[in-house]
């Protein structure tokens, strides 16, 4: 019975399919080899080819982070079209991109496929949904660089130790401590009663960032702010009256937390309906994407948030030579869409990968690539990355500053840098303004 069910299920789940395709491919290759008699040369050429795997959530709920993928891949492929010279030899570079559909399981399977079937020499990944790719690479001894998630959310799920790190996998991004520092920087000159209402979502990032001792509220309390926190809200919540009631009662003037755009819009609407008028709202994630901010309409005016990358950053791409502003402009030109902050970070991921391959001397040797990554220092479009200097093994920090959205004439929101003491080389553009009541 079991075998009958199996034999019926296999073709539908597609497990048998790739194997069959493999066989067909192999058969085709054999025939081609036999007719052309050039198998020997084909093997030699394959050795001079670097394969880079790239996994990102191109579809699904995390898709906004990978929205610019096609554009960035196109740019990177063009800049590498002439091949890459490493250690005196020229290599052809192939980038194999895969969509994990915002699913950690699929991410893991794709990583295994890229490692075992495509034999990638280097893996690049966006790990906003979790570090499954890095886990696969660590196990299989494939060098990997990832980004797009706080380093804590990358290191701790893999049971890593910040002092020891990992053998093969690397990560660059900010950490929870950096965001807390930015928020404190945003609030430092504002005239408030220093009572902070904290609202975090009940998921992995929300629980990590919202931890009352180790997370952001802990850092705010240490800096002399009074924290009002009545607990997490469920992801997708469409009612916040419990939180708003408590904030009103405690006289909260600053609201902070981690929201998805729809949840934040609901919170704002209900606050207005219930007569709760904070002086500052400094929110992570929900205010990242212009699309989400535009959905708030005029209520977006004065919302503050962290900034990881803006077209006004004073840095250049090592791949294309473009400044941050030129990169954003060419994105808008090509795609007719608004630039977003992850563009710079995703671009820098490829910069870091290419620099590591160049510095390795032998890109086909995983050991050499890992070695070069461990001490990699490179200038990218988001600024300098330095994997040796962060104090956390295998991790490089990126710059974060604080900013505030202003709704321009015509209803288009624009993000201005207001607070830069965390990265003084990035200029502040405007002073922070309190929310109008």
């Amino acid at each position, binding site marked *: 019975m079991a075998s009958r069910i199996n034999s019926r299920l296999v073709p539908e789940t597609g497990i048998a399919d790739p194997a069959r395709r493999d066989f067909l491919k192999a058969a085709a290759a054999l025939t081609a080899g036999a007719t052309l008699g050039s198998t020997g040369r084909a093997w030699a050429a394959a050795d001079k080819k670097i394969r880079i795997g790239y996994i990102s959530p191109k579809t699904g709920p995390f898709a906004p982070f990978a929205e610019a993928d096609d554009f960035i891949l196109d740019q990177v492929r063009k800049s590498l079209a002439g091949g890459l010279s490493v250690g005196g030899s020229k290599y052809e570079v192939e980038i194999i991109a895969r969509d994990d559909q915002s699913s950690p399981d699929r991410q893991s399977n794709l990583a295994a496929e890229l490692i075992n079937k495509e034999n990638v020499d280097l893996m690049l990944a966006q790990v906003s949904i979790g570090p499954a790719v890095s886990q696969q690479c660590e196990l299989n001894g494939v060098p990997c660089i990832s980004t797009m998630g706080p380093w804590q959310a990358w290191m701790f799920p893999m049971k890593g130790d910040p002092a020891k790190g990992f053998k093969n996998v690397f990560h660059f991004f900010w950490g929870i401590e950096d965001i807390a520092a930015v928020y404190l920087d945003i609030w430092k000159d504002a005239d408030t009663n220093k009572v902070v209402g904290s609202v975090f979502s009940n998921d992995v990032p929300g629980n990590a960032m919202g931890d009352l001792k180790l997370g952001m509220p802990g850092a705010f309390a240490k800096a002399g702010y009074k924290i009002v926190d009545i607990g997490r809200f469920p992801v997708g919540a469409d009612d916040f009256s*419990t939180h708003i*009631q408590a904030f009103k009662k405690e006289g909260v003037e600053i609201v902070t937390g981690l929201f998805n755009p729809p949840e934040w819009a609901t919170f704002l609407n209900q606050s207005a*309906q219930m*007569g709760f008028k904070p002086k500052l709202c400094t929110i992570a994630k929900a205010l990242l994407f212009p699309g989400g901010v535009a959905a708030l309409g005029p209520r977006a005016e004065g919302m503050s948030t962290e900034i990881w990358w803006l077209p006004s950053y004073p840095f250049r791409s090592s791949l294309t030579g473009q400044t941050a502003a030129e990169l954003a402009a060419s994105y808008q030109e090509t795609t007719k869409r608004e630039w977003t902050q992850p563009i710079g970070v995703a671009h820098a991921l490829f910069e870091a990968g290419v620099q590591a391959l160049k510095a390795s001397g032998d890109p086909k040797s995983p050991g050499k690539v890992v070695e070069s990554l461990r001490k990699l220092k490179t200038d990218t479009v988001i600024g300098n990355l330095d994997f040796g200097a962060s104090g956390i093994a295998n991790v490089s920090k990126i710059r974060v500053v604080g900013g505030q959205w202003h709704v321009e004439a015509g209803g288009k929101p624009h993000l201005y840098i207001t607070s830069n003491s965390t990265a003084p080389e990035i200029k502040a553009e405007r002073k922070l303004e309190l929310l109008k009541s």
Partner: protein
Amino acid sequence: MQIAAETLLNGLMLGALYALFGLGLSLSVGVMRMINIAHGDLIVVGAYLTSAVMSGAGAGAFTALLVVIPMMFALGWLLQVTLLNRVVGRDPLAPLLLTFGLSIVLQNVLQEMFSADTRSLQAGDLAGLGFSVAGVSIGVLPLLSALASVALLGATHWLVGHTHFGCQARAVSDDPGTARLVGVNDRRFFAIVTGVIFSTIGVAAVLYALRTPFSPTAGPERLLYSFEAVVLGGLGNIWGTLFGGLVIGVAQLFGAKIASGLGPFFGHLVFLVALLARPQGLFGKAAS
């Protein structure tokens, strides 16, 4: 005391919206014996449709309803005639599977057309308006949306109980064979029923999207709340659906008082307990 009253009131207003989500499902279960898994996704489709009409015609959300309701009616009619009539009335599994597939297709089509960005319908100043009665603050938009939900449920109840349409609906639901004998063309009738269902979905979509921004993947959660409202109240009983929605809304908000992260969990818990106590739903007839 004030806080408890405020929570109760907010819960009732939220619950009325859940009941409106459930209305279409209640009708389709009651009349066609069909569970539409794509129900939640259709609410999202309605929201995108309204958003498109609003930006296309520069109209407000409620004006857009004048266009959206007929469009949704046509969409429902078309879907029933071309697709759903092929499976309705046979075993209950076929419509379940078909609409499950439809749900996946709809989510992906929406993502392809509108990207994964969240969108919202702007209610203008209305969204932020609120007033206070004896220290209890009430939002104007949630109140209006709750009143509209109750009115629509009432109207549907009247439609089913007191009109020729309702008479046919009850006849087809009770005994499709005999209804056909006395001249009810059930396939053609089902198309009209689905049109009506889709019209209620259109209204639910607008009220939902005015309250919360939406994205292509927001549908399944809407389905869950709709389904709970329908089952809790008793299959095919419209006032039961209203009551089911209200119970879930209130349970969610009082649950959030106990543990702020677990509001929906308490909604599900109440649903489960009620179902264990009365498997036929609070207002359902006991199985004979």
